Every structure is written in C-alpha cells, then in structure tokens.
C-alpha cells in the first residue's frame, strides 16, 4: 500500500488583496494503480481551486476608493484599545475580506478583537466569522469582544454559541455572554442559562446574569434573584435589586433585605432601595 499526497495551489486577487489557497488531497492505493487515477485527482483539485477563485471574484462591486481590508489599521481609541472607526469599512463588500482576516488569525489579539467589533456593524455577511471567533479564538479577550456583537445576529444563528459561551472557561467571556443574552431581542430563550449563571463563582458573571434576567423580562426567574441581595459584590446587589424591581415591583418592595439595602455602602444600591420603598 502506498500513500499519495497531492497539493494544489491557487492564487487570486480581490480588492487588491492577494489570497493564496492551498488544497491538499490524499490517496491510498495499491501499487500498480494506473496513472489516470492520479490525473483524476489532480484535475479535481484544480477544478476546486478554480471554483473557489470564481466564487470569491463574483462578490459585489468594489468601490473605486476601496480599502485594503487585509492591511487597514485600526485607530487607538481614547480608552487605549483598538477600533476600526472608518465608516466605509462597514460596507457589505468588505465583509468577506474582513471575515477572512479575522478567522485566519492573521493579526494579533488586539486587532482581532477590533475586527470582531467592526464586523458586527457590517452590512455584509459577518455572523459566521464572529461565531467562529467566539467558538475558536484562543484569546479570551478576543472571544469577549466578539460575543458582544452577537446581539445583532438572529437568535437562531447564535443561540448554541451563546449557550456554550456562557460556560466558557474565562469569566470575562461568561460575563459578556450573559450581558449579550440580555441585550438580544430574543434573549429570554436563554433564561435557564442566565439563572444558572446567578451562582457563577465570578461576581461579574452573577451581576450580568441578574441584570439580563431583568432586561429580558424573565418573570419566572424572579425567585432566583433575592438571594443575590446579600451578595458581597455591590454590582451584584444593584443588578439583582433592579431586575427584581423591573419584574415585580410589589414583591420587591417586600423583600426582607430592603431595609438593610437602604443604607448600603454603595450609593447606587442605597438610592435604588430607597426609591423602591417610596
């Protein structure tokens, strides 16, 4: 038995971006196989590369003042992290190139995070690339940035990704996922996941989950919130109390912890508790 490998290479340009694709084909055959089988494999590879090239070239027309999406650099925001601020980059025509740049991890994590943010504002097809990033990017900061953008995607396209990301090994990703679920118009579908996150070991995750339960109007989850009013984290207490007020103001005004929260060390908590009691 002999192993055989065939590699094909396709080079094409789009938007002044040169893309190189490699395809590797393997075959396992016995000695004595005729040459025409090898030729068939080679032809198959070449056709595949050609189709890939044509598919890429058939996208929407590229503007005359097009941007080289593979090299365009983000700006440094006032906060210090990177962001693509040029509005033209959100045009649909740039989405494939930007998606490729993101998923192929051409850049370092700070640029990938900026790419994920940019794509979530794109008028083109971007969801697959950002979903892929949430699922596969090695850097948690990139996954964290990417997951926030999923609030703009359809629920069916991101549900499984969000439900997985809320159990991500990184607490920041879990917190941002909980927040994204709350910001999504159909986030109520993930109420159970949010309730589970109320007991997360990380206070940021608990806070975001509590807030999102209020945001999505998950009345059935109300009973899970009062326990968080005793949380050591002021953010958790604040978000839980506000969610309770949103879901059931009357029941909230009767919460046993309310009197102590009126004098909470955190002014936001004490202000809110006093308002509820008014």
């Amino acid at each position, binding site marked *: 038995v002999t192993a055989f490998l065939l590699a094909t290479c396709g080079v094409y340009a789009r938007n002044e971006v040169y893309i190189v694709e490699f395809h590797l084909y393997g075959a396992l055959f016995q000695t004595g196989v005729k040459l025409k089988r090898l030729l068939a494999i080679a032809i198959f590879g070449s056709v595949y590369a050609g189709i890939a090239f044509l598919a890429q070239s058939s996208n929407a027309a590229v503007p005359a003042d097009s941007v080289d999406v593979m090299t365009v650099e983000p700006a440094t925001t*006032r906060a210090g992290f990177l962001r693509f601020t040029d509005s033209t980059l959100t045009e649909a025509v740039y989405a494939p190139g930007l998606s490729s740049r993101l998923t192929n991890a051409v850049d370092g994590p700070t640029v990938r995070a900026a790419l994920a943010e940019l794509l979530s504002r794109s008028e083109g097809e971007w969801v697959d690339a950002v979903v892929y990033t949430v699922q596969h990017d090695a850097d948690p900061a990139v996954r964290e940035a990417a997951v926030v953008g999923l609030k703009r995607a359809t629920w069916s396209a991101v549900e499984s990704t969000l439900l997985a990301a809320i159990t991500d090994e990184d607490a920041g990703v879990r917190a941002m996922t909980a927040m994204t679920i709350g910001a999504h118009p159909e986030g109520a579908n993930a109420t159970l996941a949010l309730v589970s996150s109320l007991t997360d070991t990380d206070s940021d995750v608990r806070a975001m989950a509590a807030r999102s339960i209020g945001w999505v109007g998950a009345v059935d989850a109300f009973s899970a919130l009062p326990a968080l009013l005793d949380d050591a984290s002021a953010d958790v207490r604040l978000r839980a109390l506000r969610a309770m007020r949103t879901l059931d103001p009357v029941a909230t005004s009767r919460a046993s912890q309310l009197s102590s929260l009126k004098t909470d060390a955190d002014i936001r908590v004490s*202000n809110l508790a006093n308002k509820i009691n008014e």
Partner: protein
Amino acid sequence: MNTTKRILLGSILATLVIGCGDDTAGTTVPEVTIKSFLEGMDEVVAGIANIDDDNSNGKEDWKDGGDVAGENDLVEFTFPAQILAMLGDGELLRVTLVGGQSVRAWATSGDLMLEGASGLTTLEWMSGDGEQTLHIEHDYFLSEAKLKLEHVGAAGGVFTRRNLRLVAGPLILNNHLMPSEDTWVMKVTSWGGNTQMIDSFSSVLGNRFHEISQNAYGSDVWVQDEIEFATSSGPNGHRVDVVVDLIRDRGLDPFPENELEGPDMAVMVWGSGNASSQDSGGNLEITPPFTDADGIEYPFGRIYYGEWSYGNSTTTMHNDLTTFMEEQKVQDPFTLDTSFLCVGHVDEFMTFVPDSTAPRGFRLIMSDVDMAYEILDAADPNISLSRYNSGHGFSDVGEIIEDNALRQLNNEIQEDYIDTTIATLRSTMNLSDEEIVLIPALFETVSQCYDTNAALIPGTANLIVGHDADGALELFIPDPFMRTNENDYASDLMIPAFEAAFPAEANLNWVDDWDVYHMGLGEVHCGTNVTRTPTTNWWTEALHFLD
C-alpha cells in the same frame, strides 16, 4: 536686571505726604511717618513662580542661579527714597528675609541681595541710600517667605515693625468663563479624516487656530487628554502659562516640549509610571467661579475629575497630581463617579458654558437620557440614520427606540450616575434649576470595555468653548447626525433641543467628529485644547484660601 514688576505705592506715598505735615510739636517725628508708611503696605506681596525658561537655555529659570538676563518673572518691590530720607542719624531700615528657602531677592544690578539658602537674610538701608528696589523671585507655586521690615533706632531698639508675606501665585487651571486664546487640533487623514472639523475651527478662529501634525505625533488625535493648560499670574498683568503634561504619554507625549515650551510657557509633570485612562486632560475640568451654599467664594471655580470604581478599588488621576491640586488651595478639587463610562472622563457627559443671562454667568450642560427618548419616541420611526447604521448598527429611529435593552441600559445610567452627578453638583455649587440645562443623550455599551459605555448620540456636552477674535462666544459642538439628509441640519431631531439649550449669545458650530473621534470613543473636546486669558487676581480675590 530687566524687571517688570512693580508694587504700586501711590496710596502709601499719599499717606506719607499727609504724615509729613503732621508736626504738632514743631519737630518731625519720623518714626510715626515711617510707621504709617509701613502699616499702609499691602500684607501680601504677590509674585509668580519662576518656572519657565525665559532665556531659552534649557533650564528652569530659578535654577539659572543669577542668570536673569531676559527675565520677566520677578516682582519689583520698591522702597521710596523719601521714606529712607526720614531716617535719623544712626537709624536704619532693616529688611530681613525669614523662611526664604524658596524665595530670594535681587538688586537691579543683578546682585543677589536676599536668599535664605545662602545666609543672605538681612539688608540695612539708611538715610541717603536713595530708592531701594528688590526683585523678588519664587521657585514654585505658593512658595512663601516673610519679609520683616523694621525701623531701628540708633541705640538698636526697634521703633516699628511690619511683616509682609512674599507669596507666589498658585497654579490655576483654566475654566470656560475665561476668554480663549489659541486652539489646537491634530489634522488627520486616516480613519475617515477630520477635514470638516479642521475647517470649522480654522474659519472661525483664524490664525489663533493651530493644526498639529499627524505624522509627527503618532496619529494620537486626543489633544485634550495629553495636556491641561493652566496659568500662574502676578501683578501688572504678568503671567506664566503652564502645560500640565499628563502621564498618559501616548503619541502626543513630546508635543508640549516640542511645540509649546519656552519663555512664559512651562511644561510640568506630576506623577510617573503606568497611566490609567483617568490620567487624561479630558478627565480634568474646572467649574466656573461660584459661591457655595456656605458662602465660600471660589473665584477660580473648583477642579473636578472622574473616578472609576470597580469592586473595592477606585482608579483616578495620579496621586501626585491630585495632591498638588489640593495644595494649590484656591480650586479645591472634588470628584465625580464616571464608572459607567469606558473612557471614564468627566468631559463625556457634562460641561459648563458661559451665559450672560444666567444668574451667575454660566450654566451647567448635562446629558439627559429621558430627553433623548422623549424626542425619539415622538419622531417618525422610519427616519433612516445612515451614520448610526454604520457606527452603531441602528438603521433608523425605530431600531433605537425599540431596543429594549438599550433603553434599560440608559435608564440605569440616568438613575445611577447622571442623577447622582446632578445632585452632587447642586450641593457642591449651590446650583439652581435655572442654572442646569439638560440636553438629549444616549449611551451604549462598548465592546472591549467590559460593560461600560460611550456616547451613542455624539456626546454633545463634549464641546469646546471658544471665542473669536472679536470676543464672540463660539461653541464647537459634535454634530448629532440624527437625520437622514446630512446636509439638512433643520431636519435633525436633536439639534433643535440643543439650540434651545445653549445660550442665545453663542454661535453654534456643528462639527463632524464622527469617524475619527466619536467612533474612537471621544468627541470634539477630546481632540482639542485651548489656552485662556486669566481675568481674576488671586491676590485680591482668593486670599481667604491662603491665610
């Protein structure tokens, strides 16, 4: 020595003339006349810190150690010949410098006359010495020494004594009621460019507007954040401008040294090490002058800056700077909670603008979420918003108002932070309802910045207060772009509310800061910096802080 400062003693000399005529015993009583002269002197001899580099030798002038050529920061203190002529035989006027480690005095000839560190602490002037002039020099803000003036009799007894305070001016950060002078913005060609913004400033301010090179300073567009302008002033209109060079130290770090430092403009740094976002000029602002509820007058306003709280920790400006600002006494700093903001600067959601029709000459401009929703809820939801589509993913008004999470987020911001800030400012500044003007604002959570936020509608409070060459009030305001046709300002949903909010005397200049600044989490104010003219004398208006 080329000095410029002179303490006016006209009123004192007038007293002297009257005193000379009071000779009831038929003989002159010189100690009484000298006494009246001494007692008539102002207790505080105001000076300024000699921290600039007037002779451009690369050294702070105080450190020149006698090289005072071209110097213009010494206060001239003159003792008239007529007074000295009244000294009797063997009598003298003894001048003693007490506590003068940071204050010294030069003769007009350039000779060092008084300096505590050198042991030169006493001068003695006698009748016939003629007019005596001392040129007082201070090494730092609020440096102080005592100048003891004694009329000493021939037998060594002291007839009369007068203690004066030699005080250098505090460093005073500029507020928006001070007329603007020069304005700087970086001209940018990247990221969509800022041509309209540059043109707007340039056309209104003319040659008092200056472009900063993008290439020279690493495309760091945040001119407000790298530096804060301040002044230290003395008698006769003299002043030293000070660039408070913040430790942020991004691309613009060398800008003040390269472009601003020189005679009458010093660059100074407080703090070192890693900077947080809070260590930025946009997070360092000053209220207009006011009197608080307890009757305490703040003729230079008060400094305010943001704090970013997370859990049990608080991040704010570097302790060296906040301590220094507290030590300056006259602008007693206070903090505001900016934890809801990704950038975390106070200029992102509030400011003060001059308004001659306001009770105290200014109004607080404060972001208000409820007002924004009132406007949007009443608008046609089908109004398309191209800028918001590309920048924030909202293609029309309907998408904004129907975003339940966005509405709840903004309600939280209003309740937890904006209302709290207003309450703080009311109590701190004794603000009345009439002095508070609300403007529509919405915020959204920013990716890569945890759950913190930035302006969704360009932060209109994040504006520049300027004055044209004729002194007219010019406001440079971020264009909200809440309209379909970008060229049709009249159709904008937000602009009418802003026009009603801002003072009628102001010219409103709508600035397109969208790509470079707004999408970079800042606005017009963040990308601009301004020098201003001091209009108040600390030595007459703020001595109650210096006693």
